[in-house]
C-alpha cells in the first residue's frame, strides 16, 4: 500500500475499483488542522478524470498494472498500435485512453505499454521526446531578448513555445510531462 507521502505524478493507484494515474498533487495543511494531499488523477482505461483528497494516514492501493516496453507502429482512427520487439506481438490502445498523449507519439518510438489485469490499457511516455517542427516563423538571429518566444507546430500536431532563433523544420527535445521546449537537437 502507498502512503500519502508516496504520491507523485505518474503513480498508478486503484480507487473505486479502477486504475488511475496521478496527474496533479498538492500537500495542504490548514494551520490548526490535519494534513491532506489534494490530487487529480486520470483513468487509465477511458481517460476520464477524478479529483480526490487524501488525509495523511490514509492508504492508497497500487493499481495492478504491469509495464512492457513496446514500439509505436501506427494509428487507425480507433486504436494506437504497438509491437513487442522481442516476440512481435501487437496490441491496440483506444484513442480515448491515449488522449492528448498522442501529441508526443512518433512512429518507431519506444514507450511503456500498461497492462491492467492482463489487458493493454494505456501507455507511459519517456520524459523526453524528439519532435520535428512543421511550421514556425523564420528564425531571428542575434535576438537575445530574455524570455521572448514564438509558437511552433510540431509534426504530431503539438504546439510549443520556442525561442526566437529556432528555424522551421528543426528537431527539438520536448519534456512530455510539461509539453515544454527543452533544447535543439541536431539530426
Amino acid at each position, binding site marked *: 500500500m502507498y502512503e500519502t507521502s508516496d504520491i507523485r505524478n505518474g503513480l498508478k493507484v486503484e480507487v473505486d475499483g479502477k486504475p488511475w494515474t496521478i496527474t496533479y498533487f*498538492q*500537500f*495542504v*495543511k*490548514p*494551520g*490548526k*488542522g*490535519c*494534513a*491532506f494531499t*489534494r490530487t487529480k488523477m486520470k483513468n487509465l482505461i477511458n481517460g476520464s478524470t477524478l479529483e480526490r*483528497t487524501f*488525509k*495523511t494516514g490514509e492508504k492508497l492501493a497500487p493499481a495492478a498494472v504491469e509495464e512492457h516496453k513496446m514500439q509505436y507502429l501506427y494509428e487507425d482512427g480507433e486504436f494506437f498500435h504497438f509491437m513487442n520487439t522481442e516476440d512481435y506481438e501487437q496490441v491496440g490502445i483506444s484513442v480515448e485512453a491515449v488522449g492528448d498523449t498522442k501529441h508526443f507519439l512518433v512512429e518507431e518510438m519506444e514507450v511503456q505499454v500498461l497492462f491492467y489485469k492482463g489487458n493493454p490499457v494505456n501507455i507511459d511516455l519517456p520524459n523526453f521526446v524528439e519532435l520535428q517542427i512543421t511550421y514556425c516563423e523564420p528564425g531571428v538571429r542575434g535576438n537575445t531578448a530574455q524570455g521572448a518566444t514564438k509558437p511552433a507546430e510540431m509534426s504530431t500536431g503539438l504546439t510549443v513555445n520556442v525561442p526566437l532563433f529556432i528555424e522551421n523544420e528543426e528537431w527539438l527535445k520536448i519534456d512530455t510531462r510539461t509539453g515544454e521546449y527543452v533544447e535543439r537537437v541536431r539530426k
Partner: protein
Amino acid sequence: MSPEGLRARSLVLRAVRSWFDRHGYLEVPTPVLVPSPALEENLFAVQAADGWLRTSPEFALKKVLAAGLPRIYEVAPCFREREAGPWHGREFLMLEWYRAGAELDDLMDDVEALVAAAREALGRPAPPAWRRTTVSALFREVLGLELSTASTEALAPGESSWDHAFFRRWVEDIEPTLTDAVIVSDWPASQAALARVRTDHAWPVACRFEAYIDGVELANAFLELTDPVEQRRRFEEANRARRAAGEEAHPVDEALIEAVGRMPRTAGIAMGLDRLVAVAAGWSGIHAGRVPMTPPLPS
C-alpha cells in the same frame, strides 16, 4: 532559488521591518531551541539536543508580553516536521506580532497594510478590497450547511472526529473558493488553540481569524487567552489527543502558563513570511525566495 527571488524576499523583509518600526513595535529575537514545543494535536516539532526547535515563537513572545513590552514582533526561523510542498518547508520564516489592548479588527487592518507594503516594495499594486466573512457563513454559501448544528456524519461520513470532518470539507470545498483576499473569523471552539472562546453566538466560537490570499493561508490571529487554568486544560487535552493518535505527549511549559495569567489583554498574529513574499511577488509557491538546504539530509 533565484537571484530575483532572493532580492524580492530581502525587499519585503526590509518593508516589513520598516512598517513595524513606524508603528512603534520592538523587534524581539527569542530562542530557537526550546524545552517545550507547541502543544497542538497536528503540529510536529523537530527534536534537537535535549529539547526541540520551535514551531513558532508564540510561547516566548507571550513571556515578553508578561514582562511588560506591549508591542512586539519577531521574524522567527521556525521548524515543522512532516510539512513539505510548494507552500511548505520544514524550516520557514514566521512573522509574529502582538499588540496589547488591541482587538482582532485592529490586526485585520495590520494584515491589509502589511500586504500592501510588501506589494509596494516589489512595485506591485495592493490587492483589491479585502472581504471579511466567517467560517459558518462560508459553509452556508458554499455547501448550504449549518455548521453550528452539523454532525460529523453530515460533514464527512466516516471521519474519526468532528474536527477531521470539518477539515475535509474545508480542504475539499471551502478553501478552493478563497481565491481573492479574504479574512475568515469565528472558528470552531475546538480549534481555538491559544485563543479566547466567545459564547454569545449561536455556537461557541474561537476569537480567531485566518487571512487568505489567492487560496493561500497567509496568517492566523488570536484574541489571546489570558486564563491560565483554561490554558492548562487545553494543553492537557491536546496531549490526550496526541497520545490517542499515537504521538508523544509534550511537557507543559509551566513558565508560559504563568505568563498567560500575567499578560495583558492582547491580540496576536502569526504570518508565514515566505508566503507573504510569494503572494506579494505572484509566485506559485515559496521556494523561489529561499536558499535550499543542499545537499538534502539522508532520509
